């Protein structure tokens, strides 16, 4: 049987090797080899993605044609509303500039700098939601940097960086926790990813309601304040509950996103000072 066979030696050796690999990866001993591997295989990986992503997109769309039509109708209405809001905001902005000029005050330099990157692949299983992007240390990326969509919606955080590749843990990953607040009421909580890749807003105050917009809070120092995360889609429990179970829909379609922006000028508290 197994315990007397040479397989048992092999299993024992593999368990020992697994421990060795784990220890080596903990101290970063495998990183140089991983960097070389990612550099060498990047063209082939890009080729595979460019071939199969349109196929998957077509198959996915074909199965959801009615949903897409409904969504398209909804988006047209939302687009019209947003255009109206944008016009109003533009007028407000011009009025604000005039007032600032009149009062001789100026807003500080709050604009951020970004590095645009393409998503190369997505490791998406329950509990895990990680993407790799085609930028790395050569482009100034560091672990801990904040990743947003092209519309400035929070997507995740850089976890591992190599020469020209980085891995980003998305906010829907079950290990992700983001300090957040409700935009209108400023009541704070924590946005957590979950196994089924949805977001929950923990420690929500009882007055939270469907449609509330959730943005990042600067409380932990890991994210700049005010980045849009998503909107509340479901609130479970009664208003008498101390906290309620709140489901949040991400503001960006994480599953189909192909481009991200890495915020290179915001330095999370656990990083050193920003490099010029």
């Amino acid at each position, binding site marked *: 049987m197994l315990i007397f066979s040479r397989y048992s030696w*092999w299993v024992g050796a593999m368990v020992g090797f697994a421990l060795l690999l784990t220890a080596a990866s903990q101290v970063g001993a495998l990183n140089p080899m991983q960097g070389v591997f990612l550099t060498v295989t990047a063209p082939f990986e890009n080729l*595979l993605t460019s071939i199969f992503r349109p196929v998957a997109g077509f198959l996915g769309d074909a199965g959801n044609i009615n949903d897409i039509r409904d969504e398209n109708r909804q988006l047209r209405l939302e687009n019209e509303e947003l255009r109206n809001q944008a016009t109003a905001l533009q007028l407000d902005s011009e009025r604000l500039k005039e007032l600032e000029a009149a009062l001789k005050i100026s807003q500080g330099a709050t604009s951020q700098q970004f590095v645009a990157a393409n998503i*190369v692949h997505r*490791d998406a299983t329950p509990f895990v939601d*990680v993407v790799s992007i085609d930028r790395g240390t050569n482009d100034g990326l560091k672990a801990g940097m904040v990743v947003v969509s092209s519309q400035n919606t929070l997507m995740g955080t850089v976890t591992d960086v190599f020469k020209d590749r980085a891995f980003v843990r998305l906010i829907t990953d*079950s290990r992700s926790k983001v300090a957040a607040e409700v935009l209108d009421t400023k009541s704070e909580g924590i946005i957590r990813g979950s196994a089924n890749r949805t977001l929950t807003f923990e420690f929500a105050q009882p007055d939270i309601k469907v449609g509330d917009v959730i943005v990042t809070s600067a409380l932990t120092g890991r994210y700049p304040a005010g980045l849009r995360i998503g909107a509340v889609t479901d609130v479970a429990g009664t208003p008498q509950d101390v906290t309620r179970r709140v489901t949040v829909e991400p503001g960006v379609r994480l599953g189909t996103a192909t481009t991200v922006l890495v915020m290179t000028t915001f330095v999370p508290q656990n990083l050193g000072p920003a490099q010029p």
Partner: protein
Amino acid sequence: MKNIVIAAGLVVVALAQVAVAPLFPLAAAVPDYGLAALMAVVVYAGPRSAMWAVPWFAIVFSFASDRSAGMLLLAYVPLLPASYLLSESHLPLNRYAQTLACGAGTGVWARLLLALGPIAQGASPQMGTLVGNLLISGLLLDIVLLTFVYFPLKAVGFSPRPMSLQRTGWL
């Protein structure tokens, strides 16, 4: 030459696992090309090749996906002893049934083990999602994929190898 082909093939499979497999999920599970490829190595290239192919695939897949190589190795290790135990058992199973049993069983073990990593790091367990969306749909995917690998390879002329190591060499 055979070993070079297997090693290169497993690199391609690892890249396909990160670049292609997530595009075709069933519920929340994605097809495990690596499991199917390693099972094909066990059955058609023999246990000696599988002995180095399993750690090789764990390492290249960890490089491509940024997962823990140690966890991946532990996830796929049962393939070989399970195949041996089933081949030595007196259960009335042909080689295809043995392949399905070993592959599917290892698939369940691998998905469970790889989910335990995030849970150990603080993720909520969510047993319903774990069992329903991950393990059961993953099991179905594995059975389909193993079938699609087993029969075409047999049809093109590969024949299943015995699992015994006793009569050949020192290993």
